[in-house]
């Protein structure tokens, strides 16, 4: 479905992604994890064709991404950003209808069928009641639901999500990921950048860990999600236990003042903020 080979890309003089390779098969639900500034967002920008590739290749269904027209690409892949950046007060329904843009032909507007599909997508994200409200007047969580509905209205085989729930409360997070899981069971391939390790472990079948622009670990959740891997990648003390209901691995963090004496030698060293710009500021 998505084949990435020796991918390098970045902004201006800075190379953010260095020699990334992986292959995402149809129907996989993969999480992209990693510390701040590791290149998660950049990877999603490269896959969705927003950021030009410097070297290497990204192929969608065997076809080089730069050779797929933008509209055709938007019919294969839909993206959900971290948070909405909408500058005018559109009705929420109008936002979701924009997801039908790649299917428009000629000079016409959106058809009754497009409206039907938009409403269906809104029903799935439970945002139907917001249809007539302005996107600028609803809460952040509701607006995110509308953006996910927009991506669903695009009716794509692939969904790319960039920390879609980082600003949402717990109930909303679970609601969004339940929906993603359901789409995944309908054979939608999902690649989702995440900060929340436990959310990733609950829903993703596969985890791709990115750090300093490189893939440091890639495998099934069961194989990769353990004490040693997480502690090393996140440079903090992480312990993994089992979820009481689902049995999936769940991470627990050990407070720094304790860890300082027992595990690592230098507390101050890893408390420093990550240097360099956050790649998600792009655009």
């Amino acid at each position, binding site marked *: 479905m998505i084949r990435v080979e020796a991918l390098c890309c970045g902004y201006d003089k800075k190379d953010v992604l260095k020699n990334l390779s992986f292959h995402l098969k149809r129907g996989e639900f993969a999480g992209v994890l990693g510390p701040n500034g590791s290149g998660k967002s950049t990877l999603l920008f490269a896959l*969705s064709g927003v950021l030009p590739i410097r070297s290497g290749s990204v192929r969608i269904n065997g076809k080089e991404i730069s050779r797929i027209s933008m509209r055709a690409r938007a019919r294969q892949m839909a993206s959900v950003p971290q948070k909405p950046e909408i500058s005018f007060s559109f009705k929420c329904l109008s936002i979701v209808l924009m997801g039908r843009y790649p299917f428009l032909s000629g000079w016409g507007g959106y058809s009754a069928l497009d409206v039907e599909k938009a409403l269906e997508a809104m*029903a799935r994200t439970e945002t139907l009641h917001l249809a007539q409200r302005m996107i600028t007047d609803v809460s952040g969580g509701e607006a995110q639901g509308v953006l996910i509905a927009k991506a669903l209205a695009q009716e794509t085989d692939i969904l790319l999500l960039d920390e879609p729930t980082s600003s949402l409360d717990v109930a909303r997070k679970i609601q969004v990921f339940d929906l993603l899981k359901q789409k995944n069971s309908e054979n939608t391939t999902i690649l989702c950048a995440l900060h929340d390790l436990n959310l990733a472990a609950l829903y993703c079948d596969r985890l791709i860990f990115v750090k300093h622009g490189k893939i440091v670990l890639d495998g099934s959740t069961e194989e990769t999600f353990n004490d040693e891997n997480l502690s090393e990648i996140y440079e903090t003390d992480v312990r993994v236990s089992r979820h009481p209901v689902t049995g999936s691995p769940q991470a627990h963090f050990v407070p720094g003042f304790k860890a300082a004496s027992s595990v690592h030698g230098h507390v101050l060293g890893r408390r420093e903020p990550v240097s360099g710009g956050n790649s998600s500021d792009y655009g």
Partner: protein
Amino acid sequence: MTNRPSGTKTVDPVRAGILQKERHDRGRFVGLLVLLLLGSVASVFGACLFGRLEIPPWDVLKTFLATSGIVEGSEIDATWKAVVIHIRLSRICLSLLVGVALAVAGTVFQGILRNPLADPFTIGVSTGAAFGASMALFLGLGSGQVLGFGFIPLASLGGAVAALFAVISLGRINGRLRRETMVLAGIVVATFLSALISLVKALDEESVSSIVFWVMGSFQGRGWRHAALALPYAVAGLVMIWINSRELDILSMGDVQAKQMGVHTDRVRLRLMIGASLLTAAAVSVSGVIGFVGLVVPHLIRMSMGAEHRRLLVLSGLLGGIALLWSDVLARILLPGGEELPVGVVTALMGGPFFCFLLKRRGAKVRI
């Protein structure tokens, strides 16, 4: 939201309600469209009643009927006919055209720059166009033609595009184009170019007509000839914008999302900028710099009809035309002594306070 059913099942009445509301909104749009269309026709004829020479309304009507050939017009006073058709009607049609052009250009600039404070005037494009036109006059190219098109609007276009790119590159800080810095850059560029216009004027009293004309905008002494000069540019601009109007909505989502939804953002934005610059050039080359029409009108429509650009463009254009038409009537009749005000003074007097209101309101309401 509290309980989470499978999500696929929905109650049909909800969707039916939404669809009905959509139909209602469409009805409101069509209603407003018809109202504004009738309003502009009524305004064109109604405004012909106003002027220094008092002509009874009935005679104005008779003049129209006679001129259009519906009624045999032998008994029409030739002076009245000249005044009504060649002085008033021509100027009214021109102000309508310029109003449409400015309001549509304002809508487009606000859309592509994602900046509700943008319009041809605030971002310096109008002054750029005025500078281009006055340079053409200064260099003695005023009556020149290029492929049958007047040269002045072409020079205005050059000035408009140059000013636009200057403002964009000035307003960009760390790769981001911020709303406030963009307007500041617009003011800097506009002030600088106004000074250059004054300089050109000081160097050559003869060729560059009244400085007030370019800086404050006026329709004094303008007629059919000017309308014919501006029309091809305005039409070209409108067509270019309409072809890319659907993308204007998507650009409001930000560049990253727009690209992910299949829009060639750079290409589309360039086309829309050229379209809006064509409209600005058409307007400025015949009427000078008229502020606030392109800023206020799109906001009024957006407040009542939402932000969908196709509807917004159509309604803003019509309302802009009507608004400028009546502003010009006010400019003609406001002063008791028969003196004329530049129409830009009238639009600034009405639009300035509204601009302040917007600035204040945005501070409280908008998140970005």
